[in-house]
């Protein structure tokens, strides 16, 4: 590449270091067949990232589902993602919770750990410190359930790794704005 030393204008995202941010988008959609495919297809078709995605119906009578997407990109790309989502016909509302800056985000994870003796004790001690619950136990294993911010779950998984981490299942982030008004 022969990019000029001094940018002629600030308009190219190819110039300079890209400033990558992680944002959480809350997307309220009609709960109809294919709506998730539209959203996911938009991300793959336009080359956007999905770090995590959760979806479930949230208002049965109104046929509304909420999709919570954690995505990463430059601020320009994330603004563009919001607009592109809004173009989809069955989408009611797109809220960038990170931009709004006042949201609670939680994820649930199940973490299976196998081991015997001291490792079992250590796993239980750490689980207690993280307020993880035991939802299955055998003589040589536990399945922990842990709810919390993404970072907390990451940290717990890292601690379990040397003890005998077998596998992890995570829901992805669910999020909502704080205070009395709707997200």
């Amino acid at each position, binding site marked *: 590449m022969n990019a000029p030393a001094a*940018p002629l204008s600030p308009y190219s995202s190819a110039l300079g270091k890209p400033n990558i941010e992680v944002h959480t988008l809350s997307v309220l959609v009609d709960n109809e067949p294919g709506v998730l495919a539209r959203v996911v297809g938009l991300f793959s078709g336009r080359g956007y990232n999905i770090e995590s995605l959760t979806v479930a119906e949230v208002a049965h009578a109104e046929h509304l589902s909420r999709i919570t997407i954690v995505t990463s990109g430059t601020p320009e790309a994330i603004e563009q993602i919001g607009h592109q989502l809004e173009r989809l016909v069955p989408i009611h509302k797109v809220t960038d919770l990170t931009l709004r800056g006042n949201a609670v985000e939680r994820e649930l994870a199940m973490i299976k750990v196998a081991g015997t003796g001291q490792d079992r004790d250590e796993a239980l001690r750490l689980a207690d410190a993280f307020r993880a619950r035991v939802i299955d136990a055998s003589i040589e294993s536990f399945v922990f359930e842990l709810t919390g911010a993404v970072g907390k779950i990451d940290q717990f998984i890292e601690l379990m790794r040397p003890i005998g981490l077998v596998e992890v299942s995570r829901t992805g982030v669910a999020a909502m704005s704080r205070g009395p008004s709707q997200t």
Partner: protein
Amino acid sequence: MTNLMTGAEMVVRALRDQGVETIFGYPGGAVLPIYDALFHQKHIKHVLVRHEQGAAHAAEGFARSSGKAGVLLVTSGPGATNAVTGLTDALMDSIPVVCITGQVPTHLIGSDAFQECDTVGITRHCTKHNYLVRQIEDLSRVLHEAFYVAQNGRPGPVVVDIPKDVQFAIGTYTGPRNIEHKTYRPKLDGDPDRIEKAVLLMAAARRPIFYTGGGIINSGPEASRLLREFATLTGFPLTSTLMGLGAYPASGKNWLGMLGMHGTYEANNAMHGCDLMIAIGARFDDRITGRLDAFSPGSKKIHIDIDPSSINKNVKVDLGIVGDCAHVLRQLLDAWRSRQLAPDKMALAKWWAQIDKWRTRRSLAFKGSDEVIKPQYAVQRLYELTKARDTYITTEVGQHQMWAAQHYHFEAPNRWMTSGGLGTMGYGLPAAIGVQMAHPDALVIDIAGEASILMNIQELSTAAQYRLPVKIFILNNEYMGMVRQWQELLHDSRYSHSYSEALPDFVKLADAYGAHGIRCSDPAKLDDAIMEMLEVPKTVIFDCVVDKTENCLPMIPSGKAHNEMILPGHDAEIETAIDAAGKMLV
């Protein structure tokens, strides 16, 4: 009339209630009930195409030239997949099209049934929206909603996929109400604060330019009228994208010609040197901007677009205004007048003097010839001999398309049908058929290339069946000209597979279809031959044998900025003008 009817009858009734008079289609197993319903009525004229891609382009041509939605009806499986190119074309160029596809019965969906394909899955990415109607209760609502979505906001193609059992099922039809869609409600008026800011920027501008696009045409004739009024009022220079040609008249005082890769020297330099750019219904496509980081570096930019995602997509602008072109232009005019604003006349005179200097470079000039027909000359003569008539032009894609854009001059909107975004070879003939159906008495000419025309040549049969007097004006240089040009410039003239080998005899081909064939290779005889084409009251194939190696200039080499154009007579410079990074670009 009772409202109890079959799904197939509902389709026909809904089309009628939507004001549809002409549809383009091709029958097949999964749409037979709808074809049977068509058989029993007289209100809707069905045009039988010879390939579903042709139906889609014909619907586009119909829509683009009439301002109404174009409609096509195709069967399941291959019927739907054949239409995909046309749907994608309509999506890229924002053309309102409603495509009704048959589907296998609901109980067979997912079983790999005969002529089954996942139509909504396949077309999800190439439509504005699509529907699979699984029950008769939803059918009339979905059909009316499809027309609403296709035509409102930024227009685009909508697919309604109807399984065969739903076509046979009996239900209650409901007519189109003035539907307020529950989620899709495009914003038409611009934000008043932003309108104020925009007119103040315009009044303060010293080197302003209007950069207008297909959005003005989509918005309707009122937008073109307001644009003309505003341009006259301000005296600002104006350039347009390929898709926007005709919104402002080519004979207008403020007209700089088309901009972009094959735009004029004055338009591109004015874009580069302006201090205020007012983009209206244009989307900063890569063919327009050239090298992004050197695009109009010193200007403030106002961008008016009905699609919020167009704003700041490729180029960051200073003031984005979301709204319909006509609404926003009306608001701008009102604000300009009520504040009694005036342009900076002194600065503007200096700016025009600079533009006039650029104009003296005569960037569209070409070397004439007595021996061989220059393609530019052919378009010029075609223009001179048809400009007084009620003429509509369609094109295929390639060099001839650019020459048509450069040398055919448009005075009114909706007269120019071309595949801009997708660049679909084979667009022009079916589009011309669609235009002729919308304007039976008009002169419709497809300016074509000999390679492009072969991509949908089967539609000659359609033209013959409906006795459509479309004129196919082929600039025949025996090459995929634009491919050849790029190979000359980028790949040391290694013409890999770009020679049009084994061409048909186009005159005999015309004869075979009952059309009229003309061949001309002598510049002196060109006018008479064109007159013959115009006088013959039937489909004409005009095989215009032109200079084989002419390049389409001027040109912004890929990876270069607007002020780095290659002008006619400097072809040799292009080879060295494109660096390795530029070669990576298309």
